[in-house]
């Protein structure tokens, strides 16, 4: 379902949504005290840890929410914007920003809020920010190579740490709660007028316990993809939800007949696919079936989606998963591509007497074999590529 843009909410309406989301963002930042540079920098002098509390609470809430929505199949993690990781520019840019934070007392978002409530230093900060961006723009040709260096892809923390997303959420929660406890003790020691002295301790312990429990649940819950994949790979589940098979002869006939309702889906890996595949086939990995990327293609009701892999079992798993995900009119190539090669591509007349029906079949196979071999050799580029959903553009960068 989510993200709602661009299918449910148009790109134009999205700008209005942006405005209202911004109002909420600005309102909360100001309510939290982020329009005060002294409050913001208190974080770095041990006098006021409001920023840390707000920042971590927001991060934990949003990350847990994103994960829960994804686990219930309501948010497609494959197409939302994940900030790319450019190692060296992040290190250098982050360092410059950190020093800028201490000198200026704001970051861009908080400076907008502070300027909105009349802080002159914040207005000057915003102006400085514009000068900084101008400086970067003017020297862009000098730093472009550096700007593009250290690209590690759209890396996520869970893949870096080699744990699941749920476990990284738990880790984030544990770090956040730990930081809340430690910084509150520091603040109570260094700031005699800190509001933390009057914290109702009871409630805060209760809240910490609750959020840690949520983290545990997130860490233990298998994510939706793992769960559905386990189902699709389970033989008992496959027996209870059988997929229809298509014989090699029928598939060969439909290919040669240029059947418009046929959509062949190759579930082998991308390397094998790029070397050789059946005519008109698209390559869909198990993982990408969860996302919106191929939904347009898989959801066409009148298309017969014929899944194949080298063996039948791999294709049955993929087709079962397609069924679980609600896609209809799914077939599996009987005997896999190995069987197809044997019966059709390497068709030979058996050295025994044939019934009339058998003779017809073999005549067809012998005729189909060279035609299909040619089609496979001169394989068309995969069709329907244009129905693939695009990744959403976001973030603050040009690339």
């Amino acid at each position, binding site marked *: 379902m989510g993200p709602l843009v661009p299918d449910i909410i148009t790109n134009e309406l999205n700008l209005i949504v*942006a405005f209202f989301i911004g109002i909420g963002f600005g309102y909360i930042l100001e309510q939290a005290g982020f329009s005060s540079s002294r409050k913001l920098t208190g974080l770095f002098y041990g006098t006021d840890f409001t920023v840390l509390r707000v920042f971590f609470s927001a991060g934990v809430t*949003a990350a847990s*929410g994103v994960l829960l929505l994804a686990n219930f199949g309501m948010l497609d993690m494959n197409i939302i914007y994940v900030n790319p990781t450019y190692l060296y520019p992040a290190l250098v840019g982050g360092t410059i920003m950190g020093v800028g934070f*201490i000198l200026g007392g704001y970051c861009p*978002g908080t400076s907008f809020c502070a300027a909105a409530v009349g802080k002159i230093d914040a207005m000057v900060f915003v102006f400085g920010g514009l000068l900084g961006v101008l400086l970067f723009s003017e020297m862009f040709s000098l730093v472009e190579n550096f700007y593009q260096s250290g690209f590690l892809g759209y890396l996520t923390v869970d893949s870096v740490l080699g744990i699941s997303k749920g476990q990284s959420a738990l880790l984030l929660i544990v770090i956040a709660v730990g930081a809340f406890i430690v910084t509150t003790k520091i603040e109570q020691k260094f700031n005699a007028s800190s509001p933390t002295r009057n914290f109702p301790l009871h409630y805060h312990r209760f809240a910490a316990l609750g959020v840690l429990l949520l983290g545990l649940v997130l860490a233990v819950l298998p994510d939706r993809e793992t769960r559905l994949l386990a189902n699709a790979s389970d033989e008992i589940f496959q027996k209870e939800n059988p997929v229809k098979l298509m014989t090699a002869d029928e598939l060969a006939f439909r290919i040669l007949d240029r059947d418009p309702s046929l959509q062949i889906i190759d579930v082998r890996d991308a390397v094998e696919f790029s070397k050789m595949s059946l005519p008109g086939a698209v390559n869909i990995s198990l993982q990408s079936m969860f996302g919106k990327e191929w939904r347009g293609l898989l959801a066409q009701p009148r298309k017969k989606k014929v899944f194949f892999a080298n063996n039948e079992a791999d294709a049955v798993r993929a087709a079962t998963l397609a069924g679980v995900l609600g896609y209809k009119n799914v077939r599996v190539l009987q005997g896999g591509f190995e069987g197809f090669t044997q019966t059709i591509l390497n068709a030979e007349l058996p050295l025994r007497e044939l019934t009339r029906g058998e003779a017809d079949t073999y005549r067809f196979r012998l005729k189909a074999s060279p035609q299909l071999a040619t089609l496979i050799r001169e394989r068309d580029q995969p069709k329907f590529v244009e129905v693939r959903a695009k990744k959403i553009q976001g973030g603050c960068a040009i690339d």
Partner: protein
Amino acid sequence: METKYMNPYLAGFLLGLILLVAVFVTGRGLGASGVLRSVVVASVTAVAPEHAAEGEFYQRAAPKGTSPFKAWLVFEVLGVILGAFLSGVVANRLTLKTEHPPHVKSRLRLGMALLGGVLFGLGSQFARGCTSGAALSGMAVFSAGGFLTMLVIFGAAYASAYFFRKLWI
């Protein structure tokens, strides 16, 4: 009389919900520094169109025929300004003033705010986002780059805090 600030955990929770709504509805998180770029690109294009047409950065940021202002972040930040203003009205915090500790001169504070702004603007372009777009929003979608940027920003701020302590305490 100014109203007290909101409980920070509650504020963080609400902020997290807004961020979650942003990701769920639009597929992207919040941001701020991207708007500085929109303004710079638009201004340079208006003042020196030939220069903007030559500069690769300007062309990549706003290819010909597209307005740098018809951008998601521009609308979002307009909302941020209005939202903060409304909060200032509600909390009775609207005053035109320069905030600084008693021993720091107003002029020094403004000079440092300018310098800090320049650095933040510059750094945010290198890191492809600031505390909002890279650190906070990156965290929500488990981006390694987002976490890294957050750690480096706060690490560098802590590392340099001692040297500039006279500005704040």
